[in-house]
């Protein structure tokens, strides 16, 4: 297990491994997206209260889940990078931030586009919406902090600490709909005993969530291997990779 851990931490091994796996994640994500779109747009019936407008759920909820999941990934990698000083972990932090920011942006904007026809407003300072907006600023903060500090070691330490401190926002986002009873509806899927959503709507939602997860895996690997090649550009293996094509 430890040899695996060490091999995985080696930049060259990670570069080759990620190049092999990224296309598989990409194609399987595409298959899931097509299935999810078919089930979500053609098979699932209109909602009895919201009519057709609820179909935004198949984009909104998976991207909101991903905004949290990517953050937890980034924070875990930041912890590994801070404690064990593993290069690849820091690369993962750097690569997660823009991906997470884009999913958070998507969750916020699709939420707004769903809020207008159902709540009658694009935006309210509701707890769920506000804490999700804070999440976007945390991602942007991690990106900006790293970009602003010239020295890479200092920059990654600062960004890593910010990422870890920001973890406090994750349970706030998750429980915001229970702690503060405002406009955003409460959880429908994570009530494991009895999800209050019909299977014909739940299935496309879960398929889309899997698709987003696979897509994230692909784009994280692609970004991370670019970042590694960039940082290792003076090493012999990087020159071999570039000359090999």
């Amino acid at each position, binding site marked *: 297990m430890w040899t695996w851990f060490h091999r995985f931490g080696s930049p060259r091994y990670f570069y080759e491994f990620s190049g092999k796996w990224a296309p598989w994640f*990409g194609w399987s994500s595409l298959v899931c997206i097509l299935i999810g779109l078919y089930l979500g*747009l053609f098979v699932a019936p*209109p909602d009895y209260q919201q*009519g*057709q*407008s609820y*179909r*935004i759920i198949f*984009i*909104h909820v998976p*991207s909101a889940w991903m905004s949290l999941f990517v953050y937890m990934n980034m924070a875990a990698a930041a912890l590994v990078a801070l404690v064990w000083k593993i290069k690849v972990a820091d690369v993962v932090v750097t690569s997660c931030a*823009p*991906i997470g920011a*884009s*999913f958070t*942006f*998507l969750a916020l*904007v*699709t939420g707004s*586009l*769903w809020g*207008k*026809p159902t709540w009658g407003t694009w935006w309210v300072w509701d707890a769920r919406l506000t804490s999700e907006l804070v999440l976007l600023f945390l991602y942007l903060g991690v990106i900006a902090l790293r970009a602003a500090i010239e020295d890479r070691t200092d920059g990654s330490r600062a960004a890593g600490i910010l990422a870890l401190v920001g973890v406090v926002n994750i349970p706030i986002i998750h429980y915001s709909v229970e702690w503060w009873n405002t406009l955003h509806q409460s959880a429908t899927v994570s009530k494991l005993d009895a999800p209050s959503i019909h299977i014909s709507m739940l299935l496309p939602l879960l398929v889309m969530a899997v698709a987003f997860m696979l*897509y994230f895996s*692909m*784009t994280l690997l*692609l*970004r991370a*291997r*670019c970042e590694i*090649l*960039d940082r290792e*550009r003076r090493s012999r293996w*990087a*020159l071999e990779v*570039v*000359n090999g*094509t």
Partner: protein
Amino acid sequence: MSVQEFIRMDGYGFYIWTSYALALIVLVANLVAPMLARKRIFREIKGAIRREKLKNVPQA
């Protein structure tokens, strides 16, 4: 259901299709960005190798 009805989505078409279009943009951007970055890094490293070679050519 006709194509027009499908696009109209009972009047919610604008909200739904804007959401789906934005999702498409975000996903595609997350694929294109690393591909462009890869191209740029390859170009930079190749340039560095070329400059290194030029330096090593003995002066006549």
